[in-house]
């Protein structure tokens, strides 16, 4: 069953110089009833505008947003069965944690008894049992985040919107919250629409990722599809570290195509859909390479220590851009200046549909 349906959503802003900028340039998106969807993109790509259009704080120029078949356009924010976790948390500092969490019920006129029970259960869901009597300013950043979360689920919305809620947390806490958010989402059984510019966050939590760029959707897919099979160069470069090779197909042998870059580096690629003479852009992740006795010959220009791994920057002898390679650290790990050969499994290489 489809939960949220966005059709041909358009919205433009006028810049101070008088120009028109399309924040949403024809967005079509369907979010399932129990789906965790992440809107991912650089700042200014329209992801926050899209979120605010769903919550009702931005109006669309054209297009429609429907939730379970009901058009939301006519409803002001306070009448939409949608709640938001704000980036700044936006906790009410003059109220206790319990009153913050119960606010949605308080303004709906739910009586005190029912409210207290709901607040208790919401606090328990986010692991803050017994914290109701405190003030938001007595809590740590992570706890405030949980209060904001409890507050937004207490009224049992059909859809929860999250606007970069983890960006203010430190790395460890962020990773822990990512897992907790995903768990909470599947337990609540409602759809989450999560906005972030952090690709790692998107990969960790999402059922599907929507990559946005300049008001358009660049690609929609599962985290694995987005990472392994990026459709465009933008997606490939935005998600994870990427080596791009611009090459021309020389010949095709069965399932493999032999291509050559402008500098003469020879590459084996999956032949699917390729023909001789075609110009292609191939994507290889740093972890796709391994150090071998033969393959692409080059010299290590830098070796960056990452803990259990090393990040190597290898300059191919033939020329062209440096290749980033992840290698295991160890006694025989190559040092700066070492001559190496890089090999990869041809099926790991992904050819972009569009350059």
């Amino acid at each position, binding site marked *: 069953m489809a939960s949220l349906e966005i059709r041909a959503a358009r919205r433009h802003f006028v810049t101070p110089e008088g120009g028109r900028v399309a924040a949403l340039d024809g967005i079509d998106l369907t979010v399932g009833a129990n789906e965790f969807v992440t809107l991912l993109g650089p700042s200014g790509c329209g992801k926050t505008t899209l979120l605010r259009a769903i*919550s*009702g*704080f931005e109006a669309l120029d054209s297009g429609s947003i429907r939730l379970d078949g009901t058009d939301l356009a006519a409803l*002001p*924010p*306070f*009448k939409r069965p*949608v*709640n*938001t976790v*704000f*980036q*700044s948390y*936006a*906790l*009410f*500092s*003059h109220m206790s944690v319990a009153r913050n969490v119960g*606010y*949605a019920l*308080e*303004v*709906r006129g739910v009586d005190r008894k029912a409210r207290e029970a709901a607040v208790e259960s919401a606090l328990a869901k986010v692991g803050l049992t017994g914290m109701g009597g405190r*003030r938001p*300013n007595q809590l740590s950043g992570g706890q405030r985040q949980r209060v904001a979360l409890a*507050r*937004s689920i207490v*009224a049992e919305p059909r859809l929860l919107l999250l606007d970069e809620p983890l960006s203010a947390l430190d790395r460890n806490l962020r990773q822990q919250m990512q897992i907790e958010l995903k768990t909470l989402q599947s337990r609540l059984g409602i759809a989450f629409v999560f906005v972030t510019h952090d690709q790692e966050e998107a990969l960790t939590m999402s059922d599907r990722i929507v990559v946005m760029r300049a008001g358009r959707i660049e690609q929609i897919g599962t985290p694995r599809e987005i990472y392994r099979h990026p459709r465009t160069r933008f997606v490939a470069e935005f998600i994870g570290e990427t080596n791009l090779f611009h090459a021309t197909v020389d010949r095709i042998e069965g399932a493999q195509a032999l291509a050559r870059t402008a500098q003469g580096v020879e590459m084996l690629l999956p032949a699917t859909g390729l023909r001789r003479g075609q110009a292609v852009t191939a994507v290889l992740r740093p972890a796709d390479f391994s150090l071998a006795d033969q393959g692409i010959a080059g010299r290590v220009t830098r070796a960056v220590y990452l803990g259990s791994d090393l990040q190597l920057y290898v300059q191919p002898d033939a020329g062209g851009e440096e290749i980033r390679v992840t290698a295991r650290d160890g006694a025989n790990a190559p040092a700066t200046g070492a001559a190496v050969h890089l090999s990869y499994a041809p099926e790991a290489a992904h050819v972009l549909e569009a350059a």
Partner: protein
Amino acid sequence: MRNPIGWASLTLFSLGFFAFIYAPLFVIIGYSFNSNPVNMMVWDHFTLDWYRGLFGLAREQLSGSVMPASGYVESTGHMLAALRNSLMVASITTVISTVIGTATAIALSRFRFRLKGFYSGFLMLPMMMPDIVLGIGLLIFFVTIGMQLSMLTIIIGHCTFLSSYVFIIVQARMAGLDPALEEASADLGASEWLTLRKVLLPQLAPGILGGALLAFVISMDDLVITYFVAGTDNTTLPVYIFGMIRRGVKPEINAIATLIILASVVIAAAGLWLRARKTD
């Protein structure tokens, strides 16, 4: 490492600075306990007579039993009447200008409309305008429209510029407020009215209270504008004292001044305390 000479001179300078500011206040407080009725600058001996006189007279006036007999008592009675006028003007002015100033601050920061900057700048003007110009302007205005000078004209006069003071203080608080707070309230199902009542006003409370206290104190203190727009029978305390000094100073002035200092300290302390409690 501290330079001992520099440190000592800094301490001395600070002490001198505070002495310069507070000496006049302490002189007044001291003289309010001086029993010499003829020349209050010459110390006679300690007395509470002036306070006793003030409070006694206030009680009699309230009960209405004794009509002031001598001219001396009569003038003290006038002083108390002026104090009562001042308190009334300040209270009413504070309420009106706090409502106007707060509403304006909310409107100007939350809605977009044409000439907003122009309007905002215009609200600062009454604060920067010399009091004497405002006073003359108000007087001419009231005379032109044929309005009898009275307590009402004093209140209107005070509201014109005190609304601006409240506006500026509340606006500063408003500017520091996360706009997401109101959005969060709306998002959680609160109508605009509920958001105003349950989120916006409580969040603005320290600013509103600070503005109100300032308005009250300035209204109590205003001489120049009040001087122009007060009728003959409705002087406020500052205007009365100003007139009195030209006729010769009564020792009760010191007692009243001391009480006003005390009241100001209490109000300021209350303001600071509320601020510390409400802000985070």
